[in-house]
């Protein structure tokens, strides 16, 4: 029993160590923060050397980048896309609007805290964050995966009712 547990833990550790070098992000540009993605992926601030590549469908990607402000229409689609992704999956809040509303802090149509509706692993502050900050955010995510602490998807599965309750209040589903 002990041996099996330690073997399993060792197996998960090795997998995490290998997995962190091949994260695929969903190329789903929700708002203005997405303008910082092309410089990050292309030649000057190469994100592909970490294995991070943009992919088009939610079935194939691991990271959901919520780039910029989140209005109610977008939140609906984001939740659908998030639930279509295959675990283990990670959400990165990109920009200040996902933390506390950013420059739209008094708008009626913007969701102020993403954390109530989707489990966020890493926040990248800034409006917009420079590509170097984006890369630092990715590296923080990789470090969290390596330490086994990036468990947003497990949190979502365990507190499913809590998240659904929050979503229903806002989205009138």
């Amino acid at each position: 029993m002990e041996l099996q547990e330690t073997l399993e833990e060792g197996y998960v550790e090795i997998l995490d160590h290998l997995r962190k070098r091949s994260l695929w992000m969903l190329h789903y540009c929700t708002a203005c923060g997405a303008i910082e993605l092309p410089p990050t992926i292309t030649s000057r601030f190469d994100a592909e050397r970490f294995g991070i590549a943009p992919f088009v469908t939610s079935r194939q990607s691991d990271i959901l980048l919520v780039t910029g402000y989140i209005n109610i229409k977008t939140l609906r689609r984001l939740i659908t896309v998030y639930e279509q992704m295959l675990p283990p999956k990670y959400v990165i809040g990109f920009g200040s609007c996902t933390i506390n509303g950013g420059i739209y802090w008094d708008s009626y149509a913007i969701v102020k805290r993403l954390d109530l509706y989707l489990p966020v692993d890493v926040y990248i502050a800034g409006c917009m964050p420079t590509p170097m900050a984006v890369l630092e955010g990715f590296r923080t995510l990789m470090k969290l995966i390596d330490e086994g602490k990036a468990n947003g998807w497990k949190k979502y599965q365990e507190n499913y009712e809590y998240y659904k309750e929050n979503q229903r209040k806002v989205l009138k589903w």
Partner: protein
Amino acid sequence: MVKEILTLIFTPILAFFVGIFLLGFKRKMVARIHRRYGPPLHQPLLDIIKLLSKKENISHGVMFDLGPVMYVGAAILTVLFLPIPGFKQLTPFGDLIAFLYIMVIGSLGMALGAGESGNPNASIGIARALTLMLGYELPLIIAGNTLVIKYGTTDLYKFMTLQSGFHWNLFLLPLTAIAGFIATYGAMGEHPFDVVVAPQEVATGPMVEYGGKHLGLLMIGMAISTYIETGFFVILFLGGGANILTFILKQLGVIIVMTLFDTVFPRFRIENAVRYFWRWPTLIALVGLLIVYIGGK
């Protein structure tokens, strides 16, 4: 006898690792052409490990599951009909024409699996893939026929042995080699003919609903397919190889020359791609055929 069977069993594994190396080398080379660092050479292996270790997978039905299984199974079947230096593999049981048809089995399985996903993007992608296949097969067939006339045999192993010692078809039949090379672009889905997997247009075409272990299997099949297609070109036009290392080096050479053209082209539309294939490569191949036909008589 035992050596033959052991070689048969180890060939798919060898093909897989060589394919991984070639794919990783290609990504690195594209990155260097773009003046950036690029992922490490073993990046495709990391991708496959990540995909195969997903905790949950989804499926749309039995045919959806069988698609990648058939693709990998057919890739393993095809790679066993390709000779490697020193070993005949299964070539006494099937020649060039049987090989051309065996190559298609995997795509059929993939097409059926992708069709069952129910996403119209997948169907559009497959329609485009089949039309492109009609396009690039014409110069490839003419090039193959030229070789068959020249050597009087259709055995793939004989193609290798009759070209030994720098009597490569690349030097003896340059026009046919050029036509075959351009056709290989279409077969491998490289720019400018990658309209099948057009991420910005049809959301990766047939693979739109494939994720997790399905996509992992597909990438394994793609690695083996890369080995098969470059190996096919090497056997037909670059003279096989004295031993397995020269074979792999020649495949690497094919990938290098391909990538040099691949990175600078945008994507053709499907009609333009097929029209292009039926115009210049076909003309070049026909001229090559005429030369061999008249010269041989």
